[in-house]
Every structure is written in C-alpha cells, then in structure tokens.
C-alpha cells in the first residue's frame, strides 16, 4: 500500500508541474496576475509531493520491503542502515528520483527567495523549472518507475553494489546532482529573461548567487568523486578522464565560465548574450551528463540502465529543452541592448579570455567524450581516446589560463592601467619565478621541467590570490580604513584553491612513486625511502562480506609508522570482490598499499605507492568550494530589491 502512495505522489507532482509551467509561462505572457499568483503554491506543493515520494522509497528500503522490485534489487537485510538509505540512489530509478527531488528542493528555495523579484519574472523562472520537472517526472513514470512491485516478493534482496557501500560514495551523487540541477536555476533565469526581453545588470545580480551555489556543489561533488575513486577504485589514481567523469567536468568548466561572465554582466552590463548562452550551455551539458551516465551508452560502474527506450527519451528531452532555448536565444538575443564598451587592456578583456579558455577546454573534453560514441553509433569502428589526448590538450590550454588568473583581478574595469597592475603584482611575480627556479635546481626528476612549470604557476596564482587579503591586513594594522568584501575574499579563496590544485597535480604526477611487487610473509621492501615489512595475510569477517587482510609494518628512517592493513573483500550475496587499499594519509604525502593477487607459497602481488601532496588536489577543490560559498553570501545579494534596482540602473547609465 505504501509504495503505491509514492507512485500516486509522483503522478500528482506531474500534474502540478504541468500547472506550474502553464501558469508561469503563459500567465506571465498574458500578464494575468491571478495565474501568476498560482505559480508559487503549485511549485511548492509539486516539490513537496516529489519529496514525499522520495521519503516513501527511503522508508521501503529501511523496512526492507522486497515486494518493491527496486528495493529487492539494491538492498539486503544485512546491509547497515545508513547504506539502506543511500541505496535509494544506488541504481537508475532511484537516482532519477533523487534528481527530481533535488530539483524539488531547488524549486522550494527559489519559491521562498524570489518574493522580492518582479512577479512576472519570478513566475517565468518557476514556470521554466516546472517544465524541467515535468520532463523528468514524465521520464520516470513512463520508463523508470521506482515503485514497481515484485510479485511474489523476494525473500532476500540482491544487495547494494559493494563499491557503493562507502561514506563518500553515499553523498557523492546528491552533491553532484545538487550542482547539475542547480544549473537549471541559472537556465530558468536566462530563459525567463529572454522571454521577458529584459536582461541587464539586475538580472545578473539575481542569477549570480544561485549559479554560485550550484557551482560550489558541483565542485564539491567532483572533488568527492575523485577522492572516492582514489581510495576505492583506482589503485591510487585520482582522475581517469573516464567519460562519466567528463560528464560532470564539462558542466563544471562551462559553469565556471558562467560565474565569471555573470560578474561582467553584473558590474558592467556587458556580455549579456554570451552569459545567456553560457547559462543555456551549462544546463544542456548537465542534461548531457545525465544522458551519458543514465542511458547506458557508456559501460562503466555508473551506468545502470540498459533499456534503450530510456536513452532515447533523455536524448529527446535534451533535444526539446536545448532546441527550444536556443531558438528563443536566436530570436531574442539580437534585441538585447549592448553593454558598456571597454579597452583592450581591461578586466572585461581578461574575463573574456578566461571564458574562451574554459569553453575551449570544455569543447575539447566534449570532442574526446562524444567522438568515440558517435563513431560507434554510426558503425565506423570502435575506438577511444585515452588520458594522453586529454593531457596533451589540457596542459597547453591551462598554462596561459593560469597566468591570466593571477592578472585578471588586478586590472581595472573598462580601462586598465598596465603600470599599476605591474606594480601590484611585482612581489607575486618574483615569488613565482623564485619557486620555479628552486624547483628546477633542487629536483632532478624525469619531468623536472614540467614540475617547475607547475610550481611556478601554482606560486604565481597562489601568491597573487594573497595580494588583496595581505593589503587589507596591512591597512588594518596601520589603522587605516579598509574593507574586503566577501565576494573578493571568495574569489581569492577560489583562486588559491586553483593554485593548490595545480601544485598537487604537478608534484604528485612527477614525484609520485608507484611499484608493483611480489612479497612473501616476513619480507621487507623499500619504496621511496619507506620500509614495508609484510607480516602476512589473515581472514577477517565483516558484516556482509569476508575479507583477506594483509598486514604491513611501515617505518621511515628507523621511525615506526604503525601498520597498514589492505583488504580484499568478498561479498557473498553478489559474488563480487573489491580491493580496499590501506592509506597512511598525511597533508604532505600519502602512503598507499593495495593487495593484488595471491601467488604461490603465501606470496602476494602488491602495489605500493608514495604520493606526495596528493591531498592538495582535493584541498584545492574544497578551497574553491569555500570561495563559492563566501561569494554567494556577499552582502549585496542580501539587500532589498529596491536598492538593487536603483543601483543597477546607475550601472546601466554609466555604461
């Protein structure tokens, strides 16, 4: 009975989403105040019904109701209860429900925080979001109903895929989806502005905090995914250029470009067309990501679906959304008034370059991801492009990009002053050159030049990100008046995070050590100066698995570092085996031991790795996220609409 209530809630949500879309878009077009007034309640109740359906599915998992097919396929009585909840999004149907539920949360948030917006505009935004809900609810109810019954009920569930039984993996999908779906808000704002024919600095100011929040969640989701694959999947790799990773990386790149171009639109009223196009592109790429991951065109851990109907449905939906949005764009964009003019050396130019680099990077990822799929789809042979392609495209694009990150914030809007910028950045430049030179002299590695370039760029970006906070602190100390807005501080934090990321990637790629070895019990091996004493392997019983656990005593220069215990886990209910690496974490280096295969006479093959600064990669991601959080909470987004409109009118006049 209860699962049927969940199904009913989805049907009601579908009807309400249709009303929400109709009242919002048509009501705003006709200027019908009564219709527009109905949009917000419709949106809220629609969201609540979706969330109720989600709660019902979670409840079915908690009580192990194996008469629901989806529960029977993805849970087990023995599964620890937190994983029973996260198993809700462990496969296709449930993760779609999660998608729609996250959209429901965003819709609720927009309903609450859009009261200060003009009624017409708010109605259009919610109307467009209603259309998106409608599409996904229709998709779920026609092809992937999570509440389908299994008769007779199964006695025992098939269990959750063991590699998903992990804390980071449990929260990775919700974070990622919050980012993906959050771009639907930026999309809805852009479409609403195009529909209303009014796109200006005020619009950018309304849209910006939403975009920043979506972006920071996507950043967090990608960071979590990378960290998870490092310790669970990848034998110590942190990024594989796997199509599924690319699926989340492309919207991130375009979303990053969008965050920057929104700054230009807000401050200077320029780049309006381009910003609208980026907002459409970011959401389209989010949809494409959903399609790639959920349609089963990619064969990987993430692809659960194998029903071709589903792929065609999502593809059709992308076609409708993107096609309609681009048509609207082509029709409306030429009518938008051009923004302020600017000189070749100005912050506008630098942000334009930022956008070009990011979009080129996204396009190259898109090419490498889609080309093999298209070739295969048209029967032109099976091929793939691996990490070498992405590396050789990405590195040359990112080198100039990171030089510009350091310069951009110190160039004035409209009309830059070369000598002022040079003076401000003198110290950062010296620090960067010094760091690069030191790395070149001290480190003799195979890719020493690459490392020096990475260190130089990281030092440049990092120290230039510190310039503003440093100046502020100095002014404060001297008792002079100085202010540092959260927006500026957020930018500095995010750029500093980018510096940490580059440093982590360069150092761990060039100086990391990875060795595959054969070890016998009692034998000691040495990797990168660390001694690993192999004690042996014993059997260990877990809640829903049995494991063979190896023990290594680790020491460094005579100092005991304790023991490391990598495992091989066997999940009887699924017949699956996973490798649990043992990691000795540190801020500056990780030691990583993974068991390979048992060989003759108690010997094992093992992979031992020394990974210097690998944590800086994720630390960088967290700093970027923090930057987004600071920027989104800036004072000016929390002020009333009246002040906003007055101020933005001034921006337009100046422009």
């Amino acid at each position, binding site marked *: 009975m209860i699962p049927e209530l969940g199904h009913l809630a989805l049907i009601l949500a579908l009807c309400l989403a249709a009303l929400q879309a109709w009242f919002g878009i048509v009501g705003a077009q006709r200027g019908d105040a009564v219709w527009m007034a109905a949009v917000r309640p419709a949106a809220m109740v629609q969201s609540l019904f979706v969330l109720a359906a989600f709660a019902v599915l979670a409840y079915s998992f908690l009580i192990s109701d194996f008469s629901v097919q989806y529960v029977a396929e993805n849970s087990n009585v023995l599964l620890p209860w937190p994983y029973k909840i996260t198993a809700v999004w462990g496969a296709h149907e449930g993760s779609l429900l999660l998608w729609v539920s996250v959209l429901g949360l965003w819709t609720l948030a927009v309903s609450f925080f859009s009261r200060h917006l003009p009624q017409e505009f708010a109605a259009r935004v919610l109307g467009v979001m209603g259309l998106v809900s409608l599409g996904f609810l229709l998709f779920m109810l026609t092809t992937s109903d999570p509440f389908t019954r299994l008769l007779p009920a199964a006695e025992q569930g098939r269990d959750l895929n063991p590699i998903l039984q992990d804390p980071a993996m449990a929260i990775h999908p919700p974070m990622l989806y919050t980012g993906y779906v959050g771009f639907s808000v930026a999309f809805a704002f852009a479409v609403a502005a195009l529909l209303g024919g009014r796109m200006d600095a005020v619009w950018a100011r309304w849209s910006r905090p939403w975009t920043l929040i979506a972006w920071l969640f996507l950043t967090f989701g990608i960071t979590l995914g990378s960290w998870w694959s490092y310790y669970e999947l990848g034998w110590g790799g942190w990024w594989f250029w796997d199509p599924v990773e690319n699926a989340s990386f492309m919207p991130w790149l375009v979303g990053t470009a969008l965050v920057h171009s929104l700054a230009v639109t807000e401050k200077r009223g320029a780049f309006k067309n381009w910003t609208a196009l980026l907002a459409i592109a970011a959401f389209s790429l989010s949809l494409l990501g959903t399609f790639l991951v959920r349609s089963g065109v990619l*064969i990987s851990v993430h692809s659960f679906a194998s029903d071709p109907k589903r792929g065609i449905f999502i593809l059709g939906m992308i076609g409708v959304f993107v096609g309609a949005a681009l048509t609207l764009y082509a029709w409306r964009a030429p009518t938008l008034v051009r923004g302020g003019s600017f000189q070749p050396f100005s912050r506008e130019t630098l942000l334009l*370059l930022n956008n070009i680099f990011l979009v080129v990077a996204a396009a190259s990822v898109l090419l490498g991801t889609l080309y093999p799929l298209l070739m295969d789809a048209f029967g032109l042979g099976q*091929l*793939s492009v691996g990490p070498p392609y992405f590396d050789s*495209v990405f590195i040359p694009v990112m080198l100039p990009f990171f030089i510009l990150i350091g310069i951009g914030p110190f160039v004035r809007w409209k009309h830059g002053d070369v000598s002022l910028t040079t003076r401000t950045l003198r110290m950062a430049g010296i620090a960067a050159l010094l760091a690069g030179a030191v790395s070149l002299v001290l480190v003799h590695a195979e890719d020493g030049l690459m490392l020096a370039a990475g260190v130089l760029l990281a030092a440049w970006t990092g120290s230039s990100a510190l310039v503003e906070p440093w100046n502020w602190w100095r002014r404060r100390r001297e008792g002079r008046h100085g202010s540092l807005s959260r927006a500026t501080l957020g930018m500095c934090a995010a750029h500093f995070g980018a510096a940490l990321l580059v440093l982590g990637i360069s150092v761990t790629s060039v100086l990391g050590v990875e060795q*595959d070895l054969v070890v016998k019990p009692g034998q000691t091996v040495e990797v990168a100066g660390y001694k690993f004493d192999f004690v042996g392997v014993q059997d260990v019983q877990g809640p829903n698995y049995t494991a063979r656990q190896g023990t290594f005593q680790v020491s460094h220069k005579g100092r005991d570092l304790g023991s490391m215990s990598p495992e091989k886990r066997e999940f009887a209910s699924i017949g699956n085996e996973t*490798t649990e690496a043992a990691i000795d974490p540190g801020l500056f280096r990780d030691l990583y031991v993974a068991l*390979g295969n048992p060989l003759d006479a108690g010997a094992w093959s093992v992979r031992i790795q020394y990974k210097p600064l690998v944590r800086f990669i994720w630390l960088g991601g967290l700093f970027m996220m923090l930057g987004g959080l600071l920027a989104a909470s800036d004072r000016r987004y929390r002020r009333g609409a009246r002040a906003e409109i007055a101020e933005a009118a001034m921006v337009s006049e100046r422009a």
Partner: protein
Amino acid sequence: MTPARYRRLFAVLFVLAGVGVATVLGLTAFRKNILYYYTPAQVASGAAEPGRPFRMGGLVAMGSVQHVPDSLTVHFVLTDMQKSVPITYTGILPDLFREGQGIVVHGVLGDDGRFTADEVLAKHDQKYMPPEVAAAIKKAQQQEAATSKP
C-alpha cells in the same frame, strides 16, 4: 575605423586566433591518441598495426593462465571463440580476472604475434561482458552454425 570597431575587430581576431590554435592542438592530439579497439579475430586477420597501442577485448581462455614464479608476469590467451591471441602481462591483475571472464587489454602487438599488455581491465561485475566481446562471440557462434549446416 572608430575605436569601437577597432575594439570589436581586436576581440574577434583574438577569439579566432585562440580557437584556431586550440583546434590545431586538439586535432593533432586527437589523431595521435586515437585508440582503436579490435577483437582477436580482427587481430589475427592483420587489422592491427604492430608497434601502435590498441585495445582488444575477449574472454580469458580456459586453462590458459600461467603465472611465472616469483614475478608479476602472467601469460594467458584471449579468445573470441573464433581466433585467439597469446598475451603477456606484468603487473597486478584486476579483482575479477579469471578464466572464462570477459576482459579488455591495452598494449602492443609484437612481430611474433604475441600481445604485450600494459593494462588489463575487468569490470566490477561477475556477469559483465564487454558488449564488443558479446557481439564478437555471437558472430563467431553464428558463423560456426552457418558452416556446420551444409
């Protein structure tokens, strides 16, 4: 030219130059790094260029796995039920590598017809078979059925 036009021309040229450089870079990298996928039958018929890395999918032939003692080197045979290719791999095998399992290898074909793999992939599912492998096996079975009929 007015300053505004000059500015616009400058911007357009800049964008074009950037996109041009990126396209050249991208396509060069693309051509160099395209990785083809073959089945053992295609390899046996000489489709693969020796010395250039490619990927190959198939089943690990029953009874073919031989570990070289005290090393990480393993020899096995990859088959699509039609043709077989001997493989040598040094390193750690994935969790689900076993005889009869569908896998994908990445490496180079030697002049002697032996494939030296630097990567062996098996997916995290016991029942999983790479779709290419499934297709190749199906094709081989159909051909067998067709040849045995008359």
